[in-house]
């Protein structure tokens, strides 16, 4: 059976996660910050699927639950995007800016 080292997948997922963290820290647009969070979630999803494949090859019968967890992550991401974008719209309506440096009060 043809195989790829598991570490390649983990490295790719780590790179994606680090790109997400970097975007979260250096970006100033609130929508781009949200997209960086999605990027982090995607990196984690890749490692879930890679580990599921690895443990399935090792003979673990429950290995497929790694893929089911990806669905739950997707559901959480969808809920987070909905509520987050609604918050962004509400903030934009009162502040008229998307720059996070200018949104420095918790009060709407």
């Amino acid at each position, binding site marked *: 059976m043809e*195989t790829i080292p598991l570490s*390649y997948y983990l490295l790719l997922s780590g790179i994606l996660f680090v790109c*997400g963290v*970097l975007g979260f820290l250096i970006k*100033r*647009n609130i929508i781009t910050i949200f997209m960086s969070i999605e990027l982090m979630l995607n990196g984690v999803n890749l490692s879930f699927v890679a580990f599921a494949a690895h443990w399935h090859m090792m003979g673990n019968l429950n290995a497929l639950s790694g893929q089911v967890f990806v*669905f739950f992550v997707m559901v959480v991401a969808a809920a987070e995007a909905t509520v987050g974008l609604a918050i962004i719209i509400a903030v934009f309506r009162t502040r008229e800016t998307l720059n996070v440096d200018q949104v420095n009060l918790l009060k709407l």
Partner: protein
Amino acid sequence: MLHLILFLFFGTLCVAGAINLLAQSHPINSALSLIVVMASLAAEYLLLGAEFVAAVQVIVYAGAIMVLFIFVIMLLNAGKEERTKGSRIAILLGIPGTLLGAVLIAWTLLYHASGEAVPIGALPGGPQAIARLLFHEFLLPFEVTSILILIAIMGAVVLASRPEAIAKRHPDATPKAVPQLVAAGKER
């Protein structure tokens, strides 16, 4: 061998999209490169044999969620982001620290992994296998996520309700006074 080439191709595409997301200053360009990342991740899932996850990745992530993002970007007419200067000490300490950590993690993963490997295309990740697991072992979490989605919908409706609707309930208030009404707790 072909699988390795495909993995490297889509992995490179993925990383290039992620870096482009950071490099672009206009949010719509960032959103489009995020779609590239998600589509090539779907190809990676296919290489791992996770067919159904790959399909859902394209439909839900690259489709539904990203449409929501682009819709909001266009609704708010978001322009180029203004750059602000970061602090100097953060740059001096942060970049070498990040590089050190990245090199350490990559070195550990590549040279000290004890031969763990991933088979290609051997995982039964079809809809039937996933559904059996999702509706037997994970039935309770599945139902709980439906409640989560319901709460998210209600939250979005409450948060994004239009100020005109508020203004209609307070005919004497000017549109500028709506935020004050919200702040005073008279309206949501």
